[in-house]
């Protein structure tokens, strides 16, 4: 069945370093992908999205890369800060229907 998974369950980085969180997806028909940040006790918070007709999109300190050939998605966070510590999820959807989430990656930022 369709699934979205993450390679690394926990990522620890030093404050100021760049972070890269990876995600593999299996549904080649998905046309829209989103990265979410979830802090303890809160709902998922939108970070950045990308459509399948793009391979890169940049936001403020974040970049999402999409490689459709190998069905891989990554989130890059520049100059990681303590406030970036959270669980990060990638999610996929087709035609704006239900989101399919991965299990999540815990990002820990060391000061």
């Amino acid at each position: 069945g369709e699934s979205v998974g993450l390679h690394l369950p926990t990522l620890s980085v030093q404050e100021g370093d760049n972070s890269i969180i990876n995600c593999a997806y299996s549904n080649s028909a998905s046309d829209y992908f989103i990265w979410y940040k979830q802090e303890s006790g809160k709902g998922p918070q939108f970070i950045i999205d990308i459509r399948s007709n793009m391979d890169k999109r940049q936001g403020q300190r974040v970049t999402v890369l999409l490689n459709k050939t190998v069905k891989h998605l990554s989130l890059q966070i520049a100059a990681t800060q303590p406030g970036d510590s959270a669980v990060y999820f990638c999610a996929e959807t087709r035609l704006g229907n239900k989101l399919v989430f991965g299990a999540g990656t815990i990002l820990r930022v060391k000061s």
Partner: protein
Amino acid sequence: EAGVAQSPRYKIIEKRQSVAFWCNPISGHATLYWYQQILGQGPKLLIQFQNNGVVDDSQLPKDRFSAERLKGVDSTLKIQPAKLEDSAVYLCASSSYRGANYGYTFGSGTRLTVV
């Protein structure tokens, strides 16, 4: 704009009791979702509404879970009777296609503990 509102924030019940959660989506969002998030996992869809109609409830345990969105605005999710494995965070989300994205927005969720 106001976000997705959910209540209550926390609920503790005994197994076999019933419980209900409420969600008010972002104004104008036609699509509403209920997700279940078990600790340490990503959210999983329970049910999707388009206005007041059900689009997808294939993952909803219909023997104990029910949901409605009678007027196409707010929604309730009910569990009766609850089981221990229903302990989770229940997230409501809404979306509306605008330009290049679908505008998915999540509420803060209701944390349910079944004892």
